[in-house]
């Protein structure tokens, strides 16, 4: 049996709306409240939602996303910030920051309150310990995925190797090693093109 296609229903989900600061805020707040699991999970969700509302086309969104990666800070924040600036100016950008930052902030205050109430019970301590125990594994899997998706050249291997050795040997200077290291790597790539 053929299911009748519902053209009207399909149209409804792609209904275009005006990107007002309030709508941008609500859209991002909703996504940031309901999506768990890191920037690279959440960015495509944001892209879809913006596209569905007719605010931006996919190609433009991912162009901005790739530009956003040059900036520090959470990738969901920088992508939302730059996209919203593009489609709704300064007010849009401010709405985007609030939409990304406020929901987790409120959630964390609630969780923090919960922990101060129950953090001392034996059961909850065991829960936190178990939850914490998997963190090295998750970092390892992030490393694995990032390494797998990179085009490795001898130059890249040397850069990562040297920087890692410096970071592990002098952890208390990590901040300066990173900034200096990235600048040196950039200049190196600028001067010696191979």
């Amino acid at each position, binding site marked *: 049996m053929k299911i009748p296609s519902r053209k009207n229903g399909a149209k409804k989900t792609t209904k275009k709306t005006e990107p007002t600061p309030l709508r941008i805020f609500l859209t991002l707040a909703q996504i940031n409240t*309901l999506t*768990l699991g*890191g920037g690279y*999970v959440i960015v495509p969700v944001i892209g879809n939602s913006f596209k569905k509302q007719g605010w931006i086309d996919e190609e433009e969104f991912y162009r901005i996303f790739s*530009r956003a*990666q*040059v900036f*520090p*800070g*959470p*990738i969901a*924040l*920088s992508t939302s*910030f*730059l996209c919203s600036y593009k489609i709704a100016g300064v007010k849009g950008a401010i709405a985007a920051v609030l939409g*990304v*930052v406020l*929901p*987790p*902030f409120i*959630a*964390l*205050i609630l*969780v*923090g309150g919960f922990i101060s109430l129950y953090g001392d019970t034996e*059961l909850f301590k*065991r*829960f936190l*310990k*178990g*939850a*914490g*125990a*998997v*963190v*090295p*594994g*998750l970092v390892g*899997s*992030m*490393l*694995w*995925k*990032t390494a797998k998706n*990179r085009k490795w050249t001898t130059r*890249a291997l040397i850069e*990562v190797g040297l*920087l*890692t050795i410096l*970071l*592990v040997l002098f*952890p208390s200077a990590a*901040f300066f090693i*990173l*900034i200096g*290291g*990235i600048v040196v790597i*950039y200049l190196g*790539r*600028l001067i010696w093109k191979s």
Partner: protein
Amino acid sequence: MEILKISLAFFKIGIVAFGGGWSVVGLIKQEIVPSWMSVDAFSSLIAIAQSTPGPIALNAATLVGWQKAGFFGALAATFSVIAFPLLAMSLTLAFSRYIPIKKDLADESLRSGSMAMIIMTLWTLLPQNTIPMPWIFALASFGITAFTQINGVWVILGSGAINMLLGLLP
């Protein structure tokens, strides 16, 4: 005073928070362990930050601020960690014409930087002794999240629940 120190620490973290949340975890650890909390407490905090909505660096900032200096500590730390990124983006939008940075080169350089940060994070978070339990949890979670599509959040919550149930055994 405490709030000022926390803000400064997270402002610094915000400057180098490249390449996805996990890479910056090692640096956050460097700033707050052991002066503000133990390694174990830190791992639990990161687990909470990852299994609640929102970017991990932001959530870690809110939690550390909250634990050390209450509501205003949380507010200050959260604002501090995004202060530099927002400033950098605003300045770039305003003056992009005058900034001669080559994007593809910057991209590759940052990739190398964040890769080194992730390795450092992993290095400092590995279990410090040979008690089998933490290694089993870590290796199992690595296997699950690296080779299946299962979201890490479920691994965190599941392993918390398992450890809690183990505690109920006689």
